């Protein structure tokens, strides 16, 4: 996976800044609550949502169990339909394959459809290094690219921006990338969209090469599927001469019947729509219609390692709907950038540490970026038990070097708790010294972290068990 952003602090430090940014808090609160409520309404319309969700999870599990079979089936079908299939073990290999394919066309520009996989591998940066410019054509990705920003949401990468900020970005930088923003453009959404339309249309008509990802890959026919709202993706899929799709190996579904389940689950979970406005499917190449050359780059980049982990493998069911982000109380306050990855929110907190490992400060802190409230699991359309995976990853983190003080403290607590006599003795000692217990602990560490905003509870004069033992009861105590 793409490297950790340079100088990225651990999650708590990055999140601290976000909690103090009132504009960001307002933008995120408004956006996440709006989409969260709409999703709940869209899902409530279906009587069989629970059944659909179980089916989605089952199809993904079945496919992952026989992933080798379905990938080879997909490869054969794509090849038979005139496409070429490339296998990339990691980000570097995928980037090299795409760069070579673009260079072979003689072009130095590509248009891009919004794609998480290409962001994960840092494709735009890799192409720039060999002199190829990639133009993002999804409206929100365009805002991020023009603003030299980082995406902060899977579905709505510019969710942290309000329309005034977007107007300023368009005015300032659109001209450097192509058609400039019209004179006197206001921050009305219609005017902003029109400016983007004019800017992007010129790119679509000029581009000879497009790069996409895919939401699904249907193994039985070798068909790729992209679902979107804007139609910009369809422009990229149909106008250029060469199409290169970079697709994670977990995107495969066996049949069109299986696809039907996900085409119901995804739009309602992600944009709260019954059906997304544009669903594009393509199978290899077709004479006289669309690209003449099609390349599928199948990307592993850590996925088989996740598949080998019995608890972690459910992460690969993810269809990138972002329902978990929209409902997450931590994401709402911390914002997407605090996660230091193109995958923010609850799914990012389990996906990123599995893809990148937990050696960096940020990656080791991500499994802890959750109160384990379970809202993410509840809305997940493929029933990924995110809290279970978070706790599983926390165990991996605590088994690494470091955590000396914490490990010692929890070991001591465990030693006390496993023996009622020790537990009772410690409790009695605490009660005896209660007069000198502070309500604030100014020492660094957990005490200070608690006391910055909260008083400690006052210790009562008598624990329950002491009271119980002195209670005059006929039943007695044990």
């Amino acid at each position, binding site marked *: 996976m793409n490297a950790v952003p340079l100088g990225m602090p651990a999650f708590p430090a990055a999140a601290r800044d976000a*909690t103090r940014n009132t504009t960001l808090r307002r933008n995120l609160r408004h956006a996440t609550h709006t989409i969260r409520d709409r999703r709940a309404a869209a899902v409530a319309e279906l009587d069989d949502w629970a059944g659909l969700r179980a089916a989605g999870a089952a199809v993904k599990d079945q496919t992952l169990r026989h992933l080798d079979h379905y990938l080879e089936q997909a490869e054969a079908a794509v090849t038979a339909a005139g496409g070429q299939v490339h296998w990339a073990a990691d980000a570097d290999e995928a980037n090299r394959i795409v760069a070579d394919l673009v260079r072979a066309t003689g072009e130095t520009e590509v248009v891009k459809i919004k794609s998480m996989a290409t962001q994960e591998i840092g494709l735009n940066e890799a192409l720039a290094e060999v002199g190829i410019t990639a133009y993002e054509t999804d409206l929100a990705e365009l805002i991020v690219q023009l603003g030299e920003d980082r995406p902060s949401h899977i579905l709505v990468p510019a969710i942290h921006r309000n329309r005034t900020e977007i107007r300023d970005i368009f005015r300032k930088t659109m001209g450097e990338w192509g058609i400039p923003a019209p004179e006197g453009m206001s921050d009305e959404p219609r005017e902003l969209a029109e400016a983007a339309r004019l800017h992007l249309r010129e790119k679509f008509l000029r581009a000879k090469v497009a790069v996409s990802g895919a939401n699904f890959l249907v193994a039985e026919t070798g068909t790729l599927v992209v679902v979107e709202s804007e139609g910009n993706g369809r422009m990229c899929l149909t106008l250029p001469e060469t199409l290169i799709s970079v697709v994670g190996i977990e995107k495969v579904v066996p049949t069109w019947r299986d696809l039907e389940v996900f085409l119901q689950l995804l739009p309602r979970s992600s944009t709260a729509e019954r059906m997304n406005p544009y669903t594009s499917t393509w199978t290899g190449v077709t004479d006289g219609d669309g690209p003449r050359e099609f390349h599928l780059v199948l990307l592993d980049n850590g996925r088989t390692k996740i598949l080998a982990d019995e608890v972690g493998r459910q992460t690969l069911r993810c269809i990138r709907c972002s329902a978990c982000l929209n409902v997450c109380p931590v994401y709402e306050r911390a914002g997407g950038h605090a996660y230091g990855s193109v995958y923010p929110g609850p799914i990012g907190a389990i996906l990123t540490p599995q893809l990148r490992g937990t050696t960096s400060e940020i990656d080791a802190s991500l499994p802890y970026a959750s*109160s384990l409230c379970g809202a993410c699991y509840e809305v997940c359309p493929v029933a990924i038990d995110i809290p279970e995976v978070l706790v599983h990853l926390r165990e991996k983190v605590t088994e690494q070097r470091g955590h000396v003080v914490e490990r010692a403290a929890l070991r001591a607590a465990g030693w006390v*708790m496993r023996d009622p006599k020790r537990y009772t003795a410690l409790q009695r000692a605490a009660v005896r010294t209660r007069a000198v217990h502070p309500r604030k602990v100014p020492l660094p560490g957990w005490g200070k*972290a608690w006391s910055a905003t909260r008083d400690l*509870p006052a210790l*009562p004069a008598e*624990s*329950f068990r002491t*009271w119980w033992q002195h209670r005059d009861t006929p*039943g007695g105590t044990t």
Partner: protein
Amino acid sequence: MRVGLFLTCVNDTLYPRTGQATVALLERLGCDVDFPLAQTCCGQMHWNTGYGRQVEPLVRGFAETFAGYDAVVTPSGSCGAMIRDNHPRAAARSGDPGLADAVAQVMPKVYELTEFLVDVLQVTDVGAYFPHRVAYHPTCHSLRLMRLGDRPTTLLRNVRGLELVDLPGAEECCGFGGTFAVKNPDVSAAMGADKLRNAESTGADVLCAADNSCLMHLGGMISRRKGAIRTLHIAEILAATETDPEGAMWARTGAHR
């Protein structure tokens, strides 16, 4: 019915009144309540912080301590969920079939307090009296893991004198989250502040829940900010009666017998 009270280490040490209220309430409803002194902690802090390997002795201790009761009642949705969801996982992982068996035996008898009242005793009016305006916060583990549903609010609605108000954003986490509160203190506090703002907007004088750990976090914020609302465990509301509205009797040693 012989009920084993699993009070939890937090309540035992910090909130004995919740334990006293639970005992008074259950005895009032005809249960034979016992508090086995061998009980300590469910192991949730270790499990959720990533030290699951240390939980096994606690799981074993719990299963042994509570093996002989008709029912095990705990006034904590969170610790109840730890037992129900994670004790079997910890037992399975231990590789000891005896432990897995012991856990499987005790598990079906474990109830959160409101669940026990409504499902087992089949009581929704516990004869309580509490003349206050109350907001109920359904803590995450009560709501999503224990699935208490409307049991707590049904019980509260039948309390004489009590006015139950709707808490805006009720289903959002308060930000406690165990060690989350100290590992991510800024996000935790931001969530807590929003929860309190919502609670205060209702005009309630009491914010109640089925988990004292969440209330410890919220109560700590209220104490620091000198807020007007106070926190109270639901057991202390359900135990209050017209003859003893402040619980003076149930807190006194042996006085209610």
